[in-house]
């Protein structure tokens, strides 16, 4: 641990207070790190980032008001050198890709934070990227898959909400036939047997959220 240098300044973003508390407790024991601010959604994260210019930002993805990916996009557009670590519960190649494309430097699972968080903060601060092996495997597995279109993702999200084709058609103001066509494409692209299976795969791969 290099104590002679200035400590790494950290912004912690998560909508769940107990998780922020845990991160704070863990960081408090590290002489080379200091927690400069916290935020509970994407919008607050952008504000806090502007105010504090942290060295490393820890970002949750599922948050109310503004989600993590949108916040990452906004922050990286304004501050291209921002170093952001994504913290989330589930692996899912699509969700990982979205976050990385938005500009995240590392992707961590909340279940592994205890052992991985501090090292990852140091690595990312030193300018490196970090993706855990279990996440990387998922990414590789689907690297050549056809990705769903924005409309297909929307349809899948509505299917996961328990909507019938007719209701989906009404909500998207398209015909029921078009919905059926979308669903056929979704099943083919995901290699799913039926709607429920497609939702399961969608959740596992982070195409849609719980």
């Amino acid at each position: 641990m290099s104590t002679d240098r200035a400590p790494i300044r950290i912004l912690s973003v998560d909508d769940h207070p107990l998780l922020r508390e845990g991160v704070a407790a863990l960081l408090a024991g590290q002489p080379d790190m200091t927690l400069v601010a916290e935020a509970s959604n994407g919008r607050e994260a952008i504000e806090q980032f502007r105010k504090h210019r942290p060295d490393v930002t820890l970002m949750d993805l599922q948050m109310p008001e503004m989600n993590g990916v949108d916040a990452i996009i906004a922050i990286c557009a304004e501050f291209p050198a921002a170093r952001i670590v994504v913290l989330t519960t589930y692996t899912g190649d699509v969700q990982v890709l979205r976050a990385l494309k938005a500009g995240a430097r590392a992707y961590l699972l909340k279940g592994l934070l205890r052992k991985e968080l501090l090292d990852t903060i140091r690595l990312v601060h030193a300018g490196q990227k970090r993706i855990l092996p279990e996440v990387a495997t998922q990414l590789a597995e689907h690297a050549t898959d056809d990705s769903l279109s924005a409309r297909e993702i929307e349809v899948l999200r509505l299917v996961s909400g328990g909507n019938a084709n007719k209701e989906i058609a009404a909500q998207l103001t398209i015909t029921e036939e078009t919905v059926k066509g979308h669903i056929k494409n979704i099943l083919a692209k995901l290699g799913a047997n039926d709607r429920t299976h497609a939702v399961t795969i969608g959740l596992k791969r982070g195409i849609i959220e719980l």
Partner: protein
Amino acid sequence: MTGTFWISTGKSAAQFLLGIIGLALITLAAVWLHLQPGSISLLYLIVVVFVSLRAGLLSSLAVSLIAVVCLHNYFLPLLSPTGTKNPLAIVAAAAFLTTAWAITAMVARVRKLTEAQLILRFEERLAERTRIARELHDTLLQSFQGLMLNFQAVYDSLPSGQAKEALEKVLDRADQAIMEGRDAIQNLRSSTTTTNELAQAMAALGEELSSVHDGGGSPTLRVSIEGTPRELHPILRDDIYRIACEALRNAFRHAQANKIEADITYGERLLRLRIRDDGKGIDPKLLNAGRDGHWGLPGMRERAEQMGARLDIWSEAGLGTEVDLRIPGTVAYGTEGSR
């Protein structure tokens, strides 16, 4: 109900034809017997209702119109001298049509309502599961993950020694438990069977059960399908699969069977699942009382009742057990069943 409804289904068309033949026979008989228009229109009504029950709204509308034409042309002229227009004829025709359509619409409505109620019940349960999964994810899981970080902070501050080592092990176990919880929450959202093919799912389960069966002597399972497998609602499929699981588990674990047979029949009006074994049978007292915690019989019955199916369990000491689950086609295949 759309125009293609009765044209596209051969069965409905046949019912429609049957209705027309019925009308013709009644007309002939009425002319032969010189029946009063009142009793004839009553007979016609019966035919119209029959057609609306079997072949749908459009067919019955068509049949009732034909009935009015028959009534008008053959019987009402009997009451009035030929060549003059009888205002009574128009009133009678209108009354007949109104009655016929009112009955038809009522039948269609009741039918649609029951189907809608069933679908709603499925959707409600799916929505409920989603809600539970989301709640667990947002509260319990996040809290535990946060607490684990707090524990780690405490761990870091401890001097090395036995206590620290012990805590490390506990924390690792806790990590595992949380991971399992996370996966369970994700699975709440998904179906127990990822394949719509019940037979496949059951065969897979059979393989699993026989692999955990101690040593040799594991019974053989043969799964067969009759009819063309059809799309089932995920919740319903889950329910059927769970009943099948219970029956198969009983056969594998308790029955001491040599052979287990499972038949799935995708009939037009009935989806039927039969699971038979040649084991020692279930004690009749148990079968009737359905004692809790063993065999899982009450659970099977409850599930069957909830989905509107009929479950019969037959068993005799030394002769084996047969579980027979019958689900009406309207429930099993949903509203768009008559494709």
